[in-house]
């Protein structure tokens, strides 16, 4: 019943889209998609049903338009490599899913989708700032924000209670005190200090921002890292690290999930995949059932400068090299059609949340009380490079793990906190200098 309806709406939508002149190309009748081909590179979304929905969407659009659609799924870092290969060679795909800085870095090789972005934004109460930051280059939309994966504090309510802590800490001082208490009970917390491409960001930038530190001035070119605020953040980190679970300097993205689900770690920063995995295995695995029942999610603590978070963002990248622009548009329209996106988001259990201002009023939020917090988390994200706009320099700093290593060097005692800040600031200066020269 429902599927039939959504298929109908979609067909109507595509039909109506065909009546309106499509973006960069002159009026294209729907029929003209017949016999064309579209290759779409996607990753593996954590919730299996959301992958199946994407595949079904491709089948539906193909049926409605007569276009041949190939969905090619590549998980993890390999999607990034493959996307870079398409950008560099102009071959291999028409659409791909990218991450936060890809739009900025690949802009000359991406199609302008401003008209479509504005049209879609209107349907959902406008795009959030973070979507504009990630997808607009020089005032034009060069990609469409697919969504963000909010990272929360995952913590064991039972272990916190056993250590005498009854709510997730609201300030960094309280978090430090909690870490001490939990360490004393042999149930330590941990955040990654290793070269983890996703978690390395989501667990380290928020600390810097909360203490008022920033990488750049608002001009995006003047390095502002070496400040008393940054130093305070590093000193806090070096202190709390003493009570961490051993091994965090080697943690890659999956390690905190593994430690938490293995019952070795009482709190960590992660998207909701830890909880979803535990909940899914509850039926067959008593250990997982125990974790799912005894864990919850918390917000980042508030620092002197406020409460911030850093998430992985995904974007739809429309390659300018594509021979099938109308096909790209048809697929993206179908993706952002409410009949699809609302259901897809709800099925995804707040793992990936589209970045629109109007999300709150839509039926996309999971019923599970332990996932309620993601509605608030969805509003906290900020892109790296703050207080400047997103820039290639900020992207390079991310790729070199400079901030992660600044904290790690101070935590492990390789450098004193002040020296670690100086080291990182020098790396930033270097990145900026070579771009100016």
């Amino acid at each position: 019943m429902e599927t039939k309806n959504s298929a109908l709406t979609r067909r109507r939508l595509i039909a109506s889209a065909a009546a309106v002149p499509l973006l960069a190309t002159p009026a294209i009748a729907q029929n003209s998609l017949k016999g064309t081909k579209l290759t779409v590179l996607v990753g593996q979304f954590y919730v299996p049903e959301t992958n199946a929905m994407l595949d079904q969407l491709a089948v539906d659009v193909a049926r409605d338009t007569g276009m041949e659609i190939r969905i090619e799924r590549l998980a993890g870092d390999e999607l990034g490599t493959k996307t870079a290969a398409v950008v560099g060679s102009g071959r291999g795909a028409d659409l791909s899913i990218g991450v936060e800085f890809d739009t900025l870095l690949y802009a000359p090789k991406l199609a302008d989708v401003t008209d479509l972005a504005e049209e879609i934004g209107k349907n959902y109460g406008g795009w959030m700032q973070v979507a504009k930051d990630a997808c607009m280059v020089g005032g034009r939309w060069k990609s469409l924000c697919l969504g963000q994966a909010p990272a929360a504090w995952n913590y064991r309510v039972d272990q916190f209670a056993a250590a005498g802590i009854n709510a997730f800490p609201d300030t960094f001082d309280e978090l430090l005190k909690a870490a001490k208490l939990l360490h004393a009970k042999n149930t330590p917390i941990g955040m990654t200090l290793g070269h983890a491409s996703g978690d390395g960001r989501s667990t380290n930038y928020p600390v810097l921002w909360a203490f008022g530190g920033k990488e750049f001035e608002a001009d995006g070119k003047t390095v502002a890292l070496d400040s008393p605020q940054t130093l305070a953040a590093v000193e806090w980190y070096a202190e709390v690290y003493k009570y961490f679970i051993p091994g965090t300097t080697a943690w890659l993205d999956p390690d905190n999930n593994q430690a938490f689900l293995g019952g070795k770690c009482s709190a960590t920063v992660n998207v909701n995949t830890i909880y979803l995995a535990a909940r899914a295995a509850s039926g067959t695995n008593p250990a997982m059932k125990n974790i799912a029942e005894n864990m919850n999610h918390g917000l980042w603590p508030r620092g002197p400068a406020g409460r911030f978070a850093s998430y992985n963002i995904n974007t739809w990248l429309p390659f300018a090299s594509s021979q099938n622009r109308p096909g790209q548009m048809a697929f993206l329209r179908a993706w952002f059609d409410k009949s699809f996106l609302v259901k897809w988001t709800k099925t995804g259990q707040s793992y990936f949340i589209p970045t629109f201002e109007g999300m709150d009023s839509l039926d996309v939020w999971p019923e599970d009380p332990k996932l309620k917090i993601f509605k608030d988390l969805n509003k906290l994200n900020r892109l790296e490079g703050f207080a400047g706009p997103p820039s290639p320099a900020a992207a390079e700093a991310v790729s070199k793990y400079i901030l992660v290593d600044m904290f790690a060097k101070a935590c492990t005692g390789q450098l004193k906190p002040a020296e670690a800040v100086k080291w990182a600031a020098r790396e930033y200066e270097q990145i900026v200098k070579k771009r100016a020269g």
Partner: protein
Amino acid sequence: MLSRIVDNERTLGLLLVAPVVLLLAGLVAYPLSVAVYSALTDQTLAESGRFIGFGNFVNVWDDQIYRQSLRNTLVFTVGSVTLKLCFGLGLALLLNEAFPFRRLVRAAILLPWIVPTVLGTMAWLWMFTPNFSVINYVLAQTGISKTGLPWLTDPDLAMFSVIIVNTWRGTPFLAISVLAGLQAIPLELYDAAAIDGAGKLHRFRYVTLPLVMPVLLTTLVLSTIWTFSDFGIVYGLTKGGPMNATHVLATLSYGTALSAGNTGEGAAISLTMLPILLPLIIWQLRRVRRSVVA
């Protein structure tokens, strides 16, 4: 007539190498020159960039992370190749002896070389992984170390760990190559040496070693090149961490070119390997040809 022409050393030589030269010129010459040229530009993945001479090389040399990666690459290469040489040569000598199930053993020791690098590295990651390391479990059970060792967590030990994995992976290649070389040594030479009253060590030093030397050197040079540009093991185990302690030129170049999109600079980082490796190759070629020229 034709056979006479073909029998000419110069003609035959050129004829035999021609297909290889054509293949490489046809397929590799263009990508190679594009890559080399890009090192001289500020090219990114999306923009062709402008010519900046040796600007990239100056920039990377100024970067502490580059220097650390260069140092790491040398430690990683020297460490791994030395271990592979010792283990590989020793293993080849052992495998040349007669013992039960020799064929099975010879095939089995090839396993680390056969298993796809990414997957073999995953297995080691699973053995080293903080908090769940099976090696640490064994160390704790046997009472050797109660807490286990921070295999990937401690900067120095992390370098040791990536060297061990590279050695694991590369030793079979060295061992089997040298074994093939050992098999070609005519037994008569050993018999003659035995008659002369040479002991085992003496025979190794004066018969075995000189005769396998060409093979040994070539496999060493190949192994050095692979180790120098090895990407998969470091990327799989640490992504260059902790604190760049295991970052090598290959991982740095990859991150620079593909994650940050600075393909020109990434190419420059890769090409700084050339001046270190090229002399090695020229020296090696001269050695291989020495008998011809002499």
